């Protein structure tokens, strides 16, 4: 496969920040290294990393391209899916544009059907994700799909991925996870060391880094710096502590975090796909079957596409205590059925078993509901 190195025609019309994104991606590609784009956290990043590729997240977070996407996709579809598809179609996202291959999984209905159309203008490989994390059949299927991804990568990019390379990549990803975990564990501090908005910025930013070693160092340095400053007395005011769960957020949906933090609360933990969901568990490096180790790790991601979905509740159960959470906010993107249906179970669990308040909020990629979000979040915080 020919690696893409040219800028898109539309490039000239972009604002500076986006141009810089394109230039950075282009410079990376000039080194003759491939770029692999992903949507969901189920994609075993270790495989593309093992062959020296950059792995970038393509989940879009603005409504800029939703109109374009709605020419192909129904209006009543999750904004994340529409926006991501739209960015891909319009060459407006540097990472999508420079991705030589996009890897999706059969997660939610909207996404897996969207990939069928995306395949018309981009090389797309879809992994068959089982619906259930339970049982050996699921595990075997998923392990086979990971082996299949390896073969696809080898074939498309004309490389061989050796066990040694993969082992190295597993270790790299584990170190990255550990760095992220140490970073977001700052959220345990009370009085707080860092605001939820800043936490999110770092977590979100880490999904676009080409050089993982450098990224790990950056995160570790940041954690050390914040810890040192905290010990030297730089502490924030104690406020009701909020955990965010639900659909992925970032970009425009930071409005939820803002609404919480401008109205007297503090976000101390992100359980969703921008946060801990895929970071908490490491790949077992003592397992000799690397593909089995990968399959086991990734199948434990507590995504609402899974039925049953015990891992989401296991994680919530633990972190509500560890982070001394006072209230849980479940963020739903409009038309996300799996997360919407799961709100009842989460509410029961949080109100019942954990004995703390819970609130779900539905939002989209517009800014029209900021007033409503403010009232809801302020009232929620007043209640704590």
């Amino acid at each position, binding site marked *: 496969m020919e690696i893409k190195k040219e800028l898109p025609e539309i490039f000239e019309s972009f604002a500076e920040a986006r141009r810089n994104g394109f230039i950075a991606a282009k410079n990376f590609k000039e080194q003759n290294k491939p770029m692999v784009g992903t949507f969901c956290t189920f994609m075993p990043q270790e495989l593309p990393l093992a062959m020296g590729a950059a792995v970038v997240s393509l989940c879009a977070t603005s409504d800029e391209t939703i109109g374009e996407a709605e020419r192909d996709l129904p209006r009543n579809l999750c904004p994340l899916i529409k926006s991501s598809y739209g960015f891909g179609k319009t060459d407006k996202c540097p990472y999508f544009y420079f991705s030589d291959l996009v890897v999706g999984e059969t997660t939610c209905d909207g996404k897996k059907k969207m990939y069928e159309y995306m395949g018309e203008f981009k090389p797309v490989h879809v992994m068959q994700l089982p619906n259930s994390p339970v049982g050996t059949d699921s595990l075997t299927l998923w392990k086979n799909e990971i082996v299949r991804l390896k073969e696809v990568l080898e074939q498309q990019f004309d490389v061989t991925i050796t066990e040694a390379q993969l082992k190295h990549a597993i270790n790299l990803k584990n170190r990255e996870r550990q760095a992220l975990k140490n970073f977001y564990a700052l959220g345990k501090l009370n009085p707080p060391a860092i605001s939820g908005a800043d936490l999110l910025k770092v977590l979100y930013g880490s999904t676009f880094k080409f050089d993982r070693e450098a990224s790990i160092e950056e995160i570790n340095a940041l954690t050390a710096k914040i810890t040192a400053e905290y010990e030297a007395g730089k502490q924030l005011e104690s406020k009701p502590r909020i955990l965010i769960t639900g659909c992925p957020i970032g970009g425009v949906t930071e409005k939820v975090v803002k609404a919480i933090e401008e109205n007297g609360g503090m976000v101390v933990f992100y359980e969703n796909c921008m946060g801990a969901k895929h970071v908490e568990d490491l790949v077992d490096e003592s397992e000799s079957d690397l593909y089995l180790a990968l399959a086991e790790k990734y199948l434990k991601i507590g995504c609402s596409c899974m039925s049953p979905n015990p891992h989401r509740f296991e994680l919530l159960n633990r972190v509500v205590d560890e982070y001394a959470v006072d209230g849980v906010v479940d963020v739903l993107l409009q038309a996300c059925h799996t997360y919407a249906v799961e709100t009842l179970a989460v509410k029961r669990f949080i*109100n019942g078993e954990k004995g703390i*308040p819970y609130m779900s909020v539905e939002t989209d990629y517009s800014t029209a509901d900021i*007033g*409503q979000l403010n*009232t809801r979040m*302020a*009232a929620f915080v*007043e*209640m704590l």
Partner: protein
Amino acid sequence: MLTIGIDSGSTTTKGVLYDGHTLLKQILVPTSHKPKVVMQEVYEHLLHGHAEESVYTVTTGYGRELLPAAHKKVTEITCHGKGAAYLGATVGADIGVVIDIGGQDSKVVLLDTYGNITDFLMNDKCAAGTGRFVEVIMRQLKEDVAFLDQYVAGSLPVKISSMCTVFAESEVIGLLADNVRGGAIAHGILNAISDRTANFAKKLPLEREVFFSGGLAQSEVVRKLLEDKLGHRVVTHPLAQFTGAIGAALIGHQKKWR
């Protein structure tokens, strides 16, 4: 020790003056398109004659940010909870639930036995199920909302199938064309809105008695409809429209003594 509570809603702005025991004054004015000016007027009206005393002011509602003199802003959810517990107690009711049908949204608030909020739901995405819905239809029927109960008296509610304000408007045109009486149509609208509100409220575990607030609480017909549909006793109060403002004043009073 006086406190002022002002609730700046989408349709009306309400204010009360409270001295820690009794409500000394209240005022209600249409918000129209200038919430800020109206709020200032309400504030000055309440303050009149008390300018020498120390007064603590709490604002709530959509326009809660708009009064420069406010000491504190609290959401309408919390204020409605507090206000309802207070008004409910004056009529001997043990309030566990507040249902508020406002001009632009509706909300359900759960209270514990101390009047603290334990959970809430808010519908603010569209006009369906809000006071605006009733207003629009009454305007279409060329009737005054203030005489709602008299207007629907003695009629059987027709079935209204659309809860979207826009679609319901055309449905009403159709019904009028079929010579259905206006009273029966309005009754049907009240029935539909009560259905919707009750189903919305039932998403929360309802306990004890329900306090009904907001503009529509003036209607005995709606109160009765809600009671039937919820299976809980629903009480209201002549000052129910002031629930949010009273709650704000009560919160101000608690703050001052802390």
